[in-house]
Protein backbone atom coordinates (compact mmCIF):
# COMPACT_ATOMS: atom_id res chain seq x y z
CA UNK A 1 0.00 0.00 0.00
CA UNK A 2 1.50 3.32 -1.10
CA UNK A 3 0.97 6.35 1.04
CA UNK A 4 0.71 9.68 -0.73
CA UNK A 5 3.95 11.55 -0.09
CA UNK A 6 2.71 14.76 -1.64
CA UNK A 7 -0.87 15.98 -1.69
CA UNK A 8 -1.58 19.35 -3.27
CA UNK A 9 -5.21 20.45 -3.30
CA UNK A 10 -6.28 23.60 -5.08
CA UNK A 11 -2.95 25.35 -4.44
CA UNK A 12 -2.78 29.03 -5.31
CA UNK A 13 0.26 31.25 -5.21
CA UNK A 14 -0.30 34.92 -5.74
CA UNK A 15 2.51 37.47 -5.77
CA UNK A 16 2.09 41.14 -5.74
CA UNK A 17 4.64 42.98 -7.85
CA UNK A 18 3.91 46.65 -7.29
CA UNK A 19 0.26 47.08 -8.19
CA UNK A 20 0.17 44.01 -10.39
CA UNK A 21 -1.08 40.74 -9.01
CA UNK A 22 0.69 37.72 -10.45
CA UNK A 23 -1.08 34.40 -10.12
CA UNK A 24 1.81 31.94 -10.38
CA UNK A 25 -0.26 28.92 -9.36
CA UNK A 26 -3.98 28.80 -9.98
CA UNK A 27 -5.74 26.05 -8.15
CA UNK A 28 -3.18 23.35 -8.91
CA UNK A 29 -3.83 19.89 -7.53
CA UNK A 30 -1.46 16.96 -7.71
CA UNK A 31 -0.76 13.82 -5.72
CA UNK A 32 2.59 12.05 -5.78
CA UNK A 33 3.15 8.69 -4.17
CA UNK A 34 6.20 7.55 -2.27
CA UNK A 35 8.80 6.13 -4.65
CA UNK A 36 7.70 7.91 -7.82
CA UNK A 37 10.08 9.54 -10.30
CA UNK A 38 8.23 12.55 -11.68
CA UNK A 39 9.34 14.99 -14.36
CA UNK A 40 7.70 18.39 -14.24
CA UNK A 41 7.83 20.20 -17.55
CA UNK A 42 6.61 23.52 -18.75
CA UNK A 43 7.75 26.70 -20.39
CA UNK A 44 9.26 29.47 -18.35
CA UNK A 45 6.59 31.42 -16.51
CA UNK A 46 4.38 28.36 -16.36
CA UNK A 47 4.65 28.24 -12.58
CA UNK A 48 6.83 25.15 -12.33
CA UNK A 49 9.53 26.93 -10.29
CA UNK A 50 6.89 28.25 -7.89
CA UNK A 51 5.53 24.72 -7.57
CA UNK A 52 9.03 23.38 -6.84
CA UNK A 53 9.56 26.04 -4.17
CA UNK A 54 6.32 25.08 -2.49
CA UNK A 55 6.99 21.35 -2.76
CA UNK A 56 10.45 21.98 -1.30
CA UNK A 57 9.00 23.91 1.66
CA UNK A 58 10.97 27.00 0.66
CA UNK A 59 7.69 28.78 0.09
CA UNK A 60 4.10 28.40 1.26
CA UNK A 61 0.88 28.46 -0.77
CA UNK A 62 -1.30 31.57 -0.63
CA UNK A 63 -4.41 29.41 -0.70
CA UNK A 64 -5.05 25.70 -0.72
CA UNK A 65 -3.47 22.77 1.06
CA UNK A 66 -0.11 21.11 0.72
CA UNK A 67 0.55 18.03 2.77
CA UNK A 68 3.99 16.47 2.84
CA UNK A 69 4.06 13.04 4.49
CA UNK A 70 0.74 13.95 6.06
CA UNK A 71 1.98 17.24 7.54
CA UNK A 72 0.09 20.39 6.58
CA UNK A 73 2.89 22.74 5.52
CA UNK A 74 0.85 25.89 4.93
CA UNK A 75 0.76 27.05 8.55
CA UNK A 76 4.32 26.34 9.61
CA UNK A 77 6.76 28.99 10.74
CA UNK A 78 10.07 29.58 8.89
CA UNK A 79 12.13 27.62 11.40
CA UNK A 80 9.69 24.71 11.27
CA UNK A 81 9.97 24.72 7.47
CA UNK A 82 13.76 24.69 7.86
CA UNK A 83 13.40 21.65 10.09
CA UNK A 84 11.29 19.82 7.49
CA UNK A 85 13.76 20.68 4.72
CA UNK A 86 16.56 19.37 6.89
CA UNK A 87 14.79 16.12 7.77
CA UNK A 88 12.83 15.20 4.66
CA UNK A 89 14.00 17.03 1.55
CA UNK A 90 17.14 17.03 -0.54
CA UNK A 91 17.78 19.72 -3.15
CA UNK A 92 19.79 19.50 -6.34
CA UNK A 93 20.11 22.78 -8.22
CA UNK A 94 20.97 23.63 -11.79
CA UNK A 95 24.01 25.66 -10.73
CA UNK A 96 25.13 23.07 -8.13
CA UNK A 97 25.20 25.72 -5.38
CA UNK A 98 28.16 24.26 -3.59
CA UNK A 99 29.75 26.49 -0.98
CA UNK A 100 32.92 27.83 -2.59
CA UNK A 101 36.37 27.10 -1.21
CA UNK A 102 34.91 24.37 0.94
CA UNK A 103 35.82 20.73 0.39
CA UNK A 104 33.45 18.17 -1.12
CA UNK A 105 33.23 16.45 2.24
CA UNK A 106 32.29 19.64 4.07
CA UNK A 107 29.71 20.50 1.43
CA UNK A 108 28.16 17.06 1.82
CA UNK A 109 28.26 17.47 5.62
CA UNK A 110 26.32 20.72 5.57
CA UNK A 111 22.77 19.43 6.31
CA UNK A 112 24.13 17.29 9.18
CA UNK A 113 25.88 20.36 10.58
CA UNK A 114 22.42 21.82 11.23
CA UNK A 115 21.26 18.61 12.83
CA UNK A 116 23.83 19.13 15.56
CA UNK A 117 25.54 15.79 14.98
CA UNK A 118 29.07 15.32 16.25
CA UNK A 119 31.81 16.08 13.77
CA UNK A 120 32.78 12.41 13.64
CA UNK A 121 29.27 11.28 12.69
CA UNK A 122 28.98 14.11 10.16
CA UNK A 123 32.19 13.00 8.47
CA UNK A 124 31.27 9.33 8.44
CA UNK A 125 27.83 9.91 6.91
CA UNK A 126 29.08 12.47 4.38
CA UNK A 127 31.89 10.13 3.28
CA UNK A 128 29.32 7.38 2.78
CA UNK A 129 27.08 9.71 0.75
CA UNK A 130 30.00 10.74 -1.48
CA UNK A 131 30.71 7.02 -1.97
CA UNK A 132 27.16 6.45 -3.16
CA UNK A 133 27.63 8.98 -5.98
CA UNK A 134 31.03 7.55 -6.92
CA UNK A 135 33.26 10.23 -5.43
CA UNK A 136 35.41 8.09 -3.13
CA UNK A 137 38.83 9.65 -2.78
CA UNK A 138 37.64 13.12 -3.78
CA UNK A 139 36.46 14.12 -0.28
CA UNK A 140 39.06 16.83 0.11
CA UNK A 141 38.77 18.35 -3.35
CA UNK A 142 37.43 21.85 -3.62
CA UNK A 143 34.60 22.66 -6.05
CA UNK A 144 37.05 24.42 -8.40
CA UNK A 145 39.07 21.20 -8.61
CA UNK A 146 36.06 19.19 -9.75
CA UNK A 147 34.32 18.96 -13.13
CA UNK A 148 30.73 20.09 -13.50
CA UNK A 149 29.45 16.53 -13.35
CA UNK A 150 31.50 15.86 -10.23
CA UNK A 151 30.24 19.06 -8.61
CA UNK A 152 26.67 18.02 -9.28
CA UNK A 153 27.44 14.63 -7.74
CA UNK A 154 28.69 16.40 -4.61
CA UNK A 155 25.39 18.28 -4.59
CA UNK A 156 23.49 14.98 -4.88
CA UNK A 157 25.56 13.56 -2.01
CA UNK A 158 24.63 16.63 0.03
CA UNK A 159 20.96 15.99 -0.77
CA UNK A 160 21.26 12.30 0.11
CA UNK A 161 23.21 12.58 3.31
CA UNK A 162 20.12 13.11 5.44
CA UNK A 163 18.32 10.10 3.89
CA UNK A 164 15.44 12.29 2.70
CA UNK A 165 12.07 10.97 1.56
CA UNK A 166 11.96 13.50 -1.27
CA UNK A 167 14.66 14.66 -3.67
CA UNK A 168 13.94 17.80 -5.70
CA UNK A 169 16.10 18.34 -8.74
CA UNK A 170 15.64 21.67 -10.49
CA UNK A 171 17.17 21.33 -13.98
CA UNK A 172 20.03 19.26 -12.58
CA UNK A 173 21.64 18.82 -16.00
CA UNK A 174 21.07 22.35 -17.25
CA UNK A 175 24.74 23.30 -16.87
CA UNK A 176 26.25 19.98 -17.91
CA UNK A 177 27.45 18.39 -21.16
CA UNK A 178 25.63 15.38 -22.58
CA UNK A 179 27.88 12.78 -21.06
CA UNK A 180 27.81 14.27 -17.56
CA UNK A 181 24.06 14.73 -17.88
CA UNK A 182 23.63 11.05 -18.58
CA UNK A 183 25.82 10.12 -15.62
CA UNK A 184 23.81 12.34 -13.30
CA UNK A 185 20.49 11.00 -14.57
CA UNK A 186 21.76 7.42 -14.16
CA UNK A 187 22.58 8.19 -10.54
CA UNK A 188 19.12 9.65 -9.95
CA UNK A 189 17.49 6.71 -11.71
CA UNK A 190 19.43 4.26 -9.57
CA UNK A 191 18.56 6.10 -6.37
CA UNK A 192 14.89 5.96 -7.31
CA UNK A 193 14.90 2.35 -8.42
CA UNK A 194 17.16 0.81 -5.80
CA UNK A 195 16.50 2.96 -2.78
CA UNK A 196 12.93 4.02 -3.41
CA UNK A 197 13.69 7.73 -3.03
CA UNK A 198 10.94 9.89 -4.49
CA UNK A 199 12.41 12.19 -7.10
CA UNK A 200 10.79 15.24 -8.63
CA UNK A 201 12.68 16.61 -11.57
CA UNK A 202 12.14 19.90 -13.33
CA UNK A 203 13.46 20.01 -16.87
CA UNK A 204 12.56 21.15 -20.32
CA UNK A 205 14.67 18.61 -22.13
CA UNK A 206 12.61 15.71 -23.36
CA UNK A 207 15.43 13.18 -23.27
CA UNK A 208 16.11 14.07 -19.62
CA UNK A 209 12.43 13.85 -18.74
CA UNK A 210 12.46 10.41 -20.33
CA UNK A 211 14.32 9.02 -17.29
CA UNK A 212 11.21 9.68 -15.20
CA UNK A 213 8.21 7.40 -15.07
CA UNK A 214 5.60 10.15 -14.88
CA UNK A 215 5.45 13.44 -16.71
CA UNK A 216 3.44 16.43 -15.52
CA UNK A 217 3.05 19.41 -17.86
CA UNK A 218 2.34 22.74 -16.21
CA UNK A 219 0.86 25.71 -18.00
CA UNK A 220 -0.45 28.97 -16.56
CA UNK A 221 -0.24 27.67 -13.04
CA UNK A 222 -2.33 24.61 -13.66
CA UNK A 223 -1.70 21.00 -14.61
CA UNK A 224 -2.02 20.71 -18.37
CA UNK A 225 -1.32 17.00 -18.64
CA UNK A 226 -0.29 14.25 -16.27
CA UNK A 227 0.69 10.89 -17.70
CA UNK A 228 2.60 7.81 -16.75
CA UNK A 229 5.33 7.33 -19.32
CA UNK A 230 6.63 4.00 -18.19
CA UNK A 231 5.60 1.36 -15.77
CA UNK A 232 6.95 2.26 -12.39
CA UNK A 233 9.43 -0.35 -11.21
CA UNK A 234 8.24 -2.28 -8.23
CA UNK A 235 10.01 -0.66 -5.31
CA UNK A 236 12.79 -2.76 -3.99
CA UNK A 237 11.74 -4.46 -0.74
CA UNK A 238 15.35 -4.47 0.36
CA UNK A 239 16.22 -1.70 2.78
CA UNK A 240 19.79 -0.69 3.20
Amino acid at each position, binding site marked *: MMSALIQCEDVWKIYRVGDVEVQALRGLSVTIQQGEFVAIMGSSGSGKSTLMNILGCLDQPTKGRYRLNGIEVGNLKPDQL*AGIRNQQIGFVFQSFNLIPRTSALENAQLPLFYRGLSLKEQRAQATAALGRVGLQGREHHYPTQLSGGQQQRVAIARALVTLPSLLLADEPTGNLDTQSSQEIMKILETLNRDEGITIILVTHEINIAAYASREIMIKDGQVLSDRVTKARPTPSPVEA
Partner: protein
Amino acid sequence: MSAFVWLTILTALRILARNRMRAGLTMLGIVIGVAVVIAMVSIGEGAKRAVQAQIASMGTNVIVIFPGVTSASGVRGSQGSAVTLTVSDALDLKKRIPLLADTGWAKRDVMQIVYGNRNWNGPINGISPSYLTIRDWSFTSGGPFTQTDLDSAARVALIGQTIVGNLFEPGEEPVGAVIRIKNVPFRVIGVLSPKGQSAQGSDQDDVIFIPFSTAERKVFGTSFIGSVGAMFGSTDQVEDLPMAAEQIREVLRARHRIQTEQDDDFTIRTQVDIGKVQEGTSETLTMMLFAIASVSLLVGGIGIMNILLVSVTERTREIGVRMAVGAKRRHIVMQFLIEAMTLSLVGGVLGIALGITGAKLTTLIAGWPTIISGNVIILAFFFSLVVGLFFGLYPANKAARLNPIEALRYE
Protein backbone atom coordinates in the same frame (compact mmCIF):
# COMPACT_ATOMS: atom_id res chain seq x y z
CA MET B 1 25.01 22.68 19.73
CA SER B 2 28.59 22.87 20.85
CA ALA B 3 29.77 20.96 17.76
CA PHE B 4 27.91 23.61 15.78
CA VAL B 5 29.59 26.48 17.65
CA TRP B 6 33.06 25.00 17.26
CA LEU B 7 32.63 24.32 13.60
CA THR B 8 31.25 27.82 13.07
CA ILE B 9 34.27 29.34 14.82
CA LEU B 10 36.57 27.21 12.66
CA THR B 11 34.68 28.27 9.54
CA ALA B 12 34.88 31.92 10.58
CA LEU B 13 38.63 31.67 11.14
CA ARG B 14 39.05 30.02 7.76
CA ILE B 15 37.07 32.77 6.05
CA LEU B 16 39.21 35.40 7.78
CA ALA B 17 42.42 33.58 6.85
CA ARG B 18 41.23 33.48 3.25
CA ASN B 19 40.63 37.26 3.13
CA ARG B 20 43.66 38.23 5.18
CA MET B 21 44.08 41.68 3.68
CA ARG B 22 40.43 42.55 4.08
CA ALA B 23 40.21 41.13 7.57
CA GLY B 24 43.36 43.01 8.55
CA LEU B 25 42.06 46.33 7.30
CA THR B 26 38.72 45.73 8.98
CA MET B 27 40.36 44.96 12.29
CA LEU B 28 42.66 47.97 12.07
CA GLY B 29 40.18 50.28 13.81
CA ILE B 30 39.89 47.95 16.78
CA VAL B 31 43.64 47.24 16.79
CA ILE B 32 44.54 50.93 16.90
CA GLY B 33 41.84 51.78 19.44
CA VAL B 34 42.83 49.05 21.83
CA ALA B 35 46.56 49.66 21.33
CA VAL B 36 46.23 53.38 22.07
CA VAL B 37 44.23 52.73 25.21
CA ILE B 38 46.62 50.08 26.50
CA ALA B 39 49.68 52.24 25.79
CA MET B 40 48.14 55.42 27.23
CA VAL B 41 46.85 53.72 30.35
CA SER B 42 50.25 52.13 30.90
CA ILE B 43 51.97 55.50 30.58
CA GLY B 44 49.29 57.15 32.75
CA GLU B 45 49.67 54.48 35.43
CA GLY B 46 53.41 54.95 35.37
CA ALA B 47 53.04 58.71 35.78
CA LYS B 48 50.52 58.22 38.58
CA ARG B 49 52.91 55.93 40.40
CA ALA B 50 55.65 58.54 40.07
CA VAL B 51 53.36 61.26 41.46
CA GLN B 52 52.38 59.01 44.34
CA ALA B 53 56.06 58.55 45.12
CA GLN B 54 56.46 62.35 45.14
CA ILE B 55 53.55 62.78 47.51
CA ALA B 56 55.01 60.11 49.75
CA SER B 57 58.29 62.08 49.78
CA MET B 58 56.50 64.80 51.76
CA GLY B 59 56.71 62.45 54.68
CA THR B 60 54.16 60.03 55.96
CA ASN B 61 50.78 61.06 57.35
CA VAL B 62 51.57 64.75 57.37
CA ILE B 63 49.29 67.66 58.17
CA VAL B 64 50.51 71.12 57.17
CA ILE B 65 49.07 74.26 58.76
CA PHE B 66 49.72 77.62 57.13
CA PRO B 67 48.86 80.96 58.67
CA GLY B 68 45.97 82.67 56.95
CA VAL B 69 45.88 85.97 55.14
CA THR B 70 46.53 89.19 57.03
CA SER B 71 43.06 90.64 56.75
CA ALA B 72 39.81 89.85 55.05
CA SER B 73 39.56 93.33 53.54
CA GLY B 74 41.97 95.83 52.06
CA VAL B 75 45.34 94.72 50.68
CA ARG B 76 45.75 91.02 51.35
CA GLY B 77 49.09 89.35 51.77
CA SER B 78 49.94 85.98 50.31
CA GLN B 79 49.27 82.76 52.08
CA GLY B 80 51.55 82.41 55.08
CA SER B 81 52.18 86.14 55.30
CA ALA B 82 50.27 86.59 58.52
CA VAL B 83 51.80 85.94 61.86
CA THR B 84 48.84 84.10 63.35
CA LEU B 85 50.60 80.82 64.10
CA THR B 86 53.10 80.57 66.89
CA VAL B 87 55.39 78.04 68.48
CA SER B 88 53.10 77.90 71.48
CA ASP B 89 50.21 76.93 69.14
CA ALA B 90 52.25 73.98 67.96
CA LEU B 91 53.22 72.92 71.47
CA ASP B 92 49.65 73.26 72.69
CA LEU B 93 48.30 71.20 69.77
CA LYS B 94 50.61 68.36 70.67
CA LYS B 95 49.52 68.50 74.28
CA ARG B 96 45.78 68.67 73.55
CA ILE B 97 45.39 66.29 70.61
CA PRO B 98 46.41 62.71 71.42
CA LEU B 99 45.99 61.69 67.74
CA LEU B 100 49.01 63.80 66.84
CA ALA B 101 52.20 61.78 67.12
CA ASP B 102 54.32 64.90 66.85
CA THR B 103 54.22 68.54 65.83
CA GLY B 104 56.89 70.69 64.34
CA TRP B 105 57.25 74.13 62.94
CA ALA B 106 59.32 76.03 60.43
CA LYS B 107 59.92 79.44 59.04
CA ARG B 108 61.64 80.10 55.76
CA ASP B 109 63.34 82.84 53.81
CA VAL B 110 65.55 82.90 50.77
CA MET B 111 69.04 84.15 51.52
CA GLN B 112 72.54 84.14 50.17
CA ILE B 113 74.80 81.35 51.31
CA VAL B 114 78.53 81.64 50.85
CA TYR B 115 81.21 78.99 51.00
CA GLY B 116 84.73 79.86 49.99
CA ASN B 117 84.48 81.72 46.70
CA ARG B 118 81.08 80.24 45.79
CA ASN B 119 77.65 81.48 46.65
CA TRP B 120 74.06 80.37 46.21
CA ASN B 121 70.63 81.78 46.97
CA GLY B 122 68.58 79.13 48.68
CA PRO B 123 65.71 78.80 51.09
CA ILE B 124 66.80 78.86 54.69
CA ASN B 125 64.43 77.00 56.98
CA GLY B 126 64.43 77.51 60.66
CA ILE B 127 62.91 74.32 62.04
CA SER B 128 62.10 72.45 65.19
CA PRO B 129 64.02 69.14 65.41
CA SER B 130 60.71 67.24 65.17
CA TYR B 131 60.23 68.65 61.65
CA LEU B 132 62.90 66.30 60.30
CA THR B 133 61.11 63.19 61.53
CA ILE B 134 57.68 64.41 60.44
CA ARG B 135 58.83 65.17 56.90
CA ASP B 136 60.86 61.99 56.85
CA TRP B 137 64.26 63.44 56.05
CA SER B 138 67.28 61.20 56.35
CA PHE B 139 71.00 61.83 56.01
CA THR B 140 73.73 60.74 53.66
CA SER B 141 76.35 61.93 56.11
CA GLY B 142 76.38 63.60 59.52
CA GLY B 143 73.14 63.86 61.49
CA PRO B 144 70.36 66.11 62.79
CA PHE B 145 70.68 68.82 65.36
CA THR B 146 69.23 68.35 68.81
CA GLN B 147 67.00 70.12 71.30
CA THR B 148 70.17 71.45 72.91
CA ASP B 149 71.13 73.14 69.64
CA LEU B 150 67.65 74.64 69.53
CA ASP B 151 67.81 75.84 73.12
CA SER B 152 71.22 77.40 72.65
CA ALA B 153 70.47 78.82 69.20
CA ALA B 154 73.53 76.98 67.89
CA ARG B 155 74.94 77.97 64.52
CA VAL B 156 74.66 74.61 62.86
CA ALA B 157 73.15 73.73 59.47
CA LEU B 158 71.85 70.74 57.53
CA ILE B 159 72.12 71.10 53.79
CA GLY B 160 70.32 69.47 50.85
CA GLN B 161 71.89 67.87 47.80
CA THR B 162 71.32 70.86 45.52
CA ILE B 163 73.17 73.12 47.96
CA VAL B 164 76.00 70.60 48.18
CA GLY B 165 76.21 70.53 44.39
CA ASN B 166 76.35 74.33 44.15
CA LEU B 167 78.69 75.14 46.99
CA PHE B 168 81.10 72.22 47.15
CA GLU B 169 83.52 70.58 44.75
CA PRO B 170 82.54 67.06 43.75
CA GLY B 171 83.90 64.65 46.34
CA GLU B 172 84.44 67.39 48.93
CA GLU B 173 83.00 66.50 52.34
CA PRO B 174 80.55 69.21 53.46
CA VAL B 175 80.15 67.96 57.03
CA GLY B 176 82.38 70.07 59.26
CA ALA B 177 82.69 72.89 56.71
CA VAL B 178 81.70 76.40 57.72
CA ILE B 179 79.30 78.23 55.45
CA ARG B 180 78.04 81.76 55.85
CA ILE B 181 74.36 82.60 55.78
CA LYS B 182 73.75 86.34 55.67
CA ASN B 183 77.35 86.65 56.89
CA VAL B 184 76.70 84.49 59.96
CA PRO B 185 78.99 81.47 60.04
CA PHE B 186 77.31 78.06 60.34
CA ARG B 187 78.94 74.69 60.74
CA VAL B 188 77.48 72.00 58.45
CA ILE B 189 76.64 68.99 60.64
CA GLY B 190 74.55 66.91 58.22
CA VAL B 191 73.90 66.35 54.53
CA LEU B 192 70.32 65.38 53.63
CA SER B 193 69.36 62.44 51.43
CA PRO B 194 67.87 63.47 48.08
CA LYS B 195 64.06 63.67 47.73
CA GLY B 196 63.69 64.93 44.18
CA GLN B 197 60.77 66.98 42.94
CA SER B 198 57.80 67.74 45.13
CA ALA B 199 54.26 67.02 43.98
CA GLN B 200 54.08 70.65 42.91
CA GLY B 201 57.28 70.39 40.93
CA SER B 202 59.70 72.32 43.15
CA ASP B 203 63.16 71.03 44.00
CA GLN B 204 62.96 69.64 47.50
CA ASP B 205 66.72 69.23 47.71
CA ASP B 206 67.36 72.95 47.39
CA VAL B 207 67.12 73.44 51.14
CA ILE B 208 69.05 74.40 54.26
CA PHE B 209 67.83 73.63 57.75
CA ILE B 210 68.98 75.53 60.82
CA PRO B 211 67.57 75.52 64.37
CA PHE B 212 64.41 77.62 64.64
CA SER B 213 65.75 79.74 67.48
CA THR B 214 68.97 80.49 65.56
CA ALA B 215 66.97 81.55 62.53
CA GLU B 216 64.72 83.76 64.58
CA ARG B 217 67.41 85.52 66.54
CA LYS B 218 70.47 85.55 64.29
CA VAL B 219 69.38 85.35 60.68
CA PHE B 220 65.83 86.42 59.88
CA GLY B 221 65.48 89.35 62.28
CA THR B 222 61.86 88.52 63.00
CA SER B 223 59.73 91.19 64.58
CA PHE B 224 57.25 88.77 66.12
CA ILE B 225 59.23 86.31 68.16
CA GLY B 226 57.54 82.92 68.23
CA SER B 227 55.59 83.29 64.97
CA VAL B 228 56.08 80.47 62.52
CA GLY B 229 55.78 80.15 58.73
CA ALA B 230 54.13 76.77 58.89
CA MET B 231 53.32 74.08 61.38
CA PHE B 232 53.43 70.39 60.81
CA GLY B 233 51.73 67.52 62.54
CA SER B 234 51.88 63.83 61.99
CA THR B 235 49.68 60.89 62.94
CA ASP B 236 50.52 57.23 63.27
CA GLN B 237 47.78 56.12 60.88
CA VAL B 238 46.86 57.73 57.57
CA GLU B 239 43.16 57.16 58.44
CA ASP B 240 43.54 59.50 61.42
CA LEU B 241 44.51 62.47 59.23
CA PRO B 242 41.02 63.94 58.63
CA MET B 243 40.05 63.58 62.28
CA ALA B 244 43.32 65.11 63.48
CA ALA B 245 42.92 67.97 60.99
CA GLU B 246 39.43 68.69 62.34
CA GLN B 247 40.67 68.65 65.95
CA ILE B 248 43.55 70.99 65.04
CA ARG B 249 41.02 73.34 63.52
CA GLU B 250 38.91 73.37 66.69
CA VAL B 251 41.87 73.92 68.99
CA LEU B 252 43.32 76.71 66.85
CA ARG B 253 39.97 78.46 66.53
CA ALA B 254 39.59 78.37 70.28
CA ARG B 255 43.16 79.59 70.86
CA HIS B 256 42.76 82.39 68.33
CA ARG B 257 39.33 83.30 69.72
CA ILE B 258 37.63 83.08 66.37
CA GLN B 259 33.87 83.61 66.49
CA THR B 260 31.59 81.00 64.95
CA GLU B 261 30.72 83.15 61.95
CA GLN B 262 34.34 84.16 61.27
CA ASP B 263 36.64 82.35 58.85
CA ASP B 264 39.72 80.49 60.01
CA ASP B 265 42.90 82.54 60.13
CA PHE B 266 44.89 79.49 59.02
CA THR B 267 44.75 76.79 56.37
CA ILE B 268 45.06 73.09 57.03
CA ARG B 269 46.25 70.71 54.33
CA THR B 270 46.74 67.02 54.68
CA GLN B 271 48.51 64.59 52.43
CA VAL B 272 45.09 63.17 51.66
CA ASP B 273 44.00 66.58 50.25
CA ILE B 274 47.06 66.78 48.03
CA GLY B 275 46.46 63.21 46.91
CA LYS B 276 42.90 64.18 45.99
CA VAL B 277 44.10 66.89 43.64
CA GLN B 278 46.28 64.32 41.92
CA GLU B 279 43.42 61.85 41.76
CA GLY B 280 41.28 64.50 40.14
CA THR B 281 43.93 64.99 37.47
CA SER B 282 44.20 61.30 36.78
CA GLU B 283 40.40 60.99 36.68
CA THR B 284 40.30 63.62 33.96
CA LEU B 285 42.99 61.69 32.12
CA THR B 286 41.04 58.47 32.51
CA MET B 287 37.86 60.08 31.19
CA MET B 288 39.76 61.35 28.18
CA LEU B 289 41.17 57.91 27.54
CA PHE B 290 37.72 56.41 27.69
CA ALA B 291 36.52 59.00 25.22
CA ILE B 292 39.36 58.12 22.81
CA ALA B 293 38.73 54.42 23.36
CA SER B 294 35.00 54.75 22.76
CA VAL B 295 35.49 56.67 19.54
CA SER B 296 38.04 54.26 18.12
CA LEU B 297 36.06 51.20 19.18
CA LEU B 298 32.98 52.78 17.61
CA VAL B 299 34.87 53.40 14.38
CA GLY B 300 36.30 49.89 14.49
CA GLY B 301 32.85 48.46 15.13
CA ILE B 302 31.38 50.33 12.18
CA GLY B 303 34.20 48.93 10.05
CA ILE B 304 33.30 45.42 11.14
CA MET B 305 29.62 46.04 10.47
CA ASN B 306 30.44 47.40 7.02
CA ILE B 307 32.57 44.43 6.02
CA LEU B 308 29.99 42.00 7.33
CA LEU B 309 27.27 43.68 5.31
CA VAL B 310 29.48 43.26 2.24
CA SER B 311 30.06 39.66 3.23
CA VAL B 312 26.33 39.00 3.64
CA THR B 313 25.71 40.36 0.15
CA GLU B 314 28.60 38.41 -1.37
CA ARG B 315 27.50 35.21 0.28
CA THR B 316 23.78 35.57 -0.33
CA ARG B 317 23.71 32.38 -2.36
CA GLU B 318 25.63 30.49 0.30
CA ILE B 319 23.11 31.70 2.87
CA GLY B 320 20.31 30.49 0.57
CA VAL B 321 21.92 27.06 0.30
CA ARG B 322 22.38 26.86 4.05
CA MET B 323 18.73 27.74 4.54
CA ALA B 324 17.64 25.21 1.91
CA VAL B 325 19.45 22.38 3.67
CA GLY B 326 17.84 23.29 6.97
CA ALA B 327 19.69 26.17 8.65
CA LYS B 328 17.33 27.93 11.04
CA ARG B 329 17.45 31.67 11.62
CA ARG B 330 19.50 31.32 14.77
CA HIS B 331 22.08 29.25 12.89
CA ILE B 332 22.59 32.04 10.36
CA VAL B 333 22.62 34.72 13.09
CA MET B 334 25.18 32.73 15.08
CA GLN B 335 27.39 32.25 12.05
CA PHE B 336 27.68 35.95 11.35
CA LEU B 337 27.90 36.96 15.00
CA ILE B 338 30.73 34.52 15.52
CA GLU B 339 32.47 35.93 12.46
CA ALA B 340 32.06 39.47 13.81
CA MET B 341 33.31 38.51 17.24
CA THR B 342 36.24 36.61 15.80
CA LEU B 343 37.20 39.73 13.85
CA SER B 344 36.90 42.02 16.84
CA LEU B 345 38.59 39.62 19.24
CA VAL B 346 41.54 38.98 16.97
CA GLY B 347 41.72 42.76 16.51
CA GLY B 348 41.54 43.25 20.27
CA VAL B 349 44.31 40.74 20.95
CA LEU B 350 46.53 42.29 18.28
CA GLY B 351 45.76 45.71 19.77
CA ILE B 352 46.71 44.53 23.25
CA ALA B 353 49.99 43.15 21.92
CA LEU B 354 50.70 46.35 20.01
CA GLY B 355 49.78 48.52 23.02
CA ILE B 356 52.10 46.59 25.35
CA THR B 357 54.89 46.85 22.78
CA GLY B 358 54.23 50.58 22.47
CA ALA B 359 54.37 51.06 26.25
CA LYS B 360 57.61 49.09 26.51
CA LEU B 361 59.12 51.10 23.67
CA THR B 362 58.11 54.33 25.41
CA THR B 363 59.97 53.21 28.51
CA LEU B 364 62.93 52.13 26.43
CA ILE B 365 63.19 55.20 24.22
CA ALA B 366 61.74 58.10 26.23
CA GLY B 367 62.54 56.63 29.62
CA TRP B 368 59.04 57.23 30.97
CA PRO B 369 57.89 54.77 33.56
CA THR B 370 55.01 52.58 32.33
CA ILE B 371 52.90 50.11 34.23
CA ILE B 372 50.88 47.57 32.27
CA SER B 373 47.76 46.77 34.22
CA GLY B 374 46.06 43.42 33.88
CA ASN B 375 42.64 45.01 34.43
CA VAL B 376 42.98 47.19 31.36
CA ILE B 377 43.93 44.18 29.25
CA ILE B 378 40.91 42.24 30.47
CA LEU B 379 38.70 45.28 29.89
CA ALA B 380 40.04 45.79 26.36
CA PHE B 381 39.46 42.12 25.57
CA PHE B 382 35.93 42.27 26.94
CA PHE B 383 35.12 45.49 25.09
CA SER B 384 36.32 44.19 21.75
CA LEU B 385 34.06 41.17 22.27
CA VAL B 386 31.11 43.45 22.99
CA VAL B 387 31.87 45.60 19.94
CA GLY B 388 31.86 42.52 17.72
CA LEU B 389 28.61 41.32 19.22
CA PHE B 390 26.92 44.70 18.96
CA PHE B 391 28.01 45.60 15.43
CA GLY B 392 27.56 42.03 14.21
CA LEU B 393 23.90 41.96 15.22
CA TYR B 394 22.57 44.02 12.34
CA PRO B 395 24.35 42.18 9.49
CA ALA B 396 23.61 38.83 11.14
CA ASN B 397 19.91 39.62 11.37
CA LYS B 398 19.91 40.89 7.82
CA ALA B 399 21.37 37.57 6.68
CA ALA B 400 18.90 35.55 8.72
CA ARG B 401 15.92 37.46 7.31
CA LEU B 402 16.82 36.69 3.70
CA ASN B 403 14.17 34.86 1.77
CA PRO B 404 15.72 31.50 0.84
CA ILE B 405 14.19 31.52 -2.64
CA GLU B 406 15.55 34.94 -3.52
CA ALA B 407 18.88 34.14 -1.88
CA LEU B 408 19.26 31.00 -4.00
CA ARG B 409 18.46 32.93 -7.14
CA TYR B 410 20.83 35.80 -6.28
CA GLU B 411 23.47 36.50 -8.92
